[in-house]
């Protein structure tokens, strides 16, 4: 059973968002990381790029397949986890902490209020 922290919100496509001092940190859930397996490549937006709620902002590739990354928030990218470009192991080892992907300055219509809470996301995982 994979971990679902209670202090953040989720997309049904397994990305998480956490608001920290006015910035939204974005990553993928432990469940998603486990499903992907060994990672070999990631493509993330650049600082300053716009990301849009429920719209693809990057790609993550495992040994077996490529998956799109959907943004749980609309806004402007203020920081990118550069360490992931060389090695994506932090995503597998620590998807909710060291494996964060981008930090976003949310727009007014950020979409954050539409995210699933941890209970709803947990229920989705339990049902699958």
């Amino acid at each position, binding site marked *: 059973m994979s971990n679902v922290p209670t202090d953040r919100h989720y997309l049904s496509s397994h990305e998480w968002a956490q608001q920290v001092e006015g910035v939204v940190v974005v990553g993928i859930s432990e469940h998603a990381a486990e499903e992907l*397996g060994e990672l*070999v490549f990631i493509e993330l937006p650049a600082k300053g790029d716009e990301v849009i709620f429920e719209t693809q902002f990057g790609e993550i590739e495992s*040994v*077996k397949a490529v998956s799109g990354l959907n943004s749980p928030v609309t806004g402007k990218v203020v920081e990118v986890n550069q360490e992931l470009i060389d090695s994506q192991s932090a995503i597998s080892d620590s998807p909710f902490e060291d494996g964060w992907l981008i930090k976003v300055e949310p727009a007014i219509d950020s979409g954050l209020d539409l995210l699933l809470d941890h209970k709803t996301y947990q229920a989705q995982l339990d049902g699958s």
Partner: protein
Amino acid sequence: MKKTVLNAAHQRHGARLVEFGGFEMPVWYSGLTDEHHAVRQRAGVFDLCHMGRFEIVGDDPVAALDRVVTQDVSRMKKGQVRYSLVCNDEGGVLDDILIYRLPDRLWLVVNAGNRQKLLHWFGERLVGAKVIDHSEELAMVALQGPLACSLLAPHIDRAHHRAVADLGYYRISRAQVNLTGTPIDGWISRTGYTGEDGFELYIPSGSAESVFDALLDLSDDVIPCGLGCRDTLRLEAGMPLYGHELSEQQDPIGAGLSFGVALDKEGGFIGEPALREVVARGPGRQLRGFVVEGKRPARQGAVILHDSRPVGVVTSGSPSPTLGVPIACGYVDSSVSEEAPLEVDLRGKSAPLSPHPLPFYRRTAETAHSE
């Protein structure tokens, strides 16, 4: 979704299960890369029960089969195993199979996803013989890797007391499997889909789980291996996978499989006239191997470009655990020279392709015995 008789064993060994060929199969247990290296360097166990195990029976099953497969079965020695295609009338590939000519019977192993299609095809097209599906009652597990022979040999009694080590490459023999405390009558072949030395065991389904576990208990060097590494191992070894390199629209000549097509065999076979034509005018496209520059693998369907013009398509691609770079194979129009610079379109970004001869990997210690 169907399950093999080893499904419970996979769950016990912590497999991640996915759908493949209509079956719930392990894609990996500990991890694809670890399992890949285990097979290259030590030994790994695979569940192959999803594959179809057929028998051809009749007054002259060899002659009947010869009319519907590309290989020359009549020239196979007893105890020999050979690779073959089953083609449609247009020369497209319905499946790629192994033919086992046993002393007293004729067997085929076919791909999981093509089982029903081939049962139907053989049922319709075999003249004077019929096909029997033994897939349910007969299980199939593989032990692959450089340690496979030394680990397995003490536990196998072959007919006439011949040693397992003396079983030639692509040979099959009756065997008593003494892995579980109870002798199990079955067959052993020196075959595989990994590019390593290794064996495939054919045993009654009721004993499959105990044999699977016993193989894993042979040594700490042996680990369970999923279809994920089976795919990367076969890709490195330059072996085609149905649905990737092969389809009903693809001839075996352009796929580089002429060695499995006996155009000269007496009596002809389904697809032979069409394949003669392909050989005469040359295949329109040919399978080639590539190393993809950069870190990003090219996947099936990625378009191959020359001067920004589409000239081919990737059929399989993956990071190569052995070579440490992304490798791919794909079809390129025969009009494009081997030296022409090629790129692959990776979802809008292009990456250069360096030609690499197939196979990408060939084991050094050959175990081609003659018996």
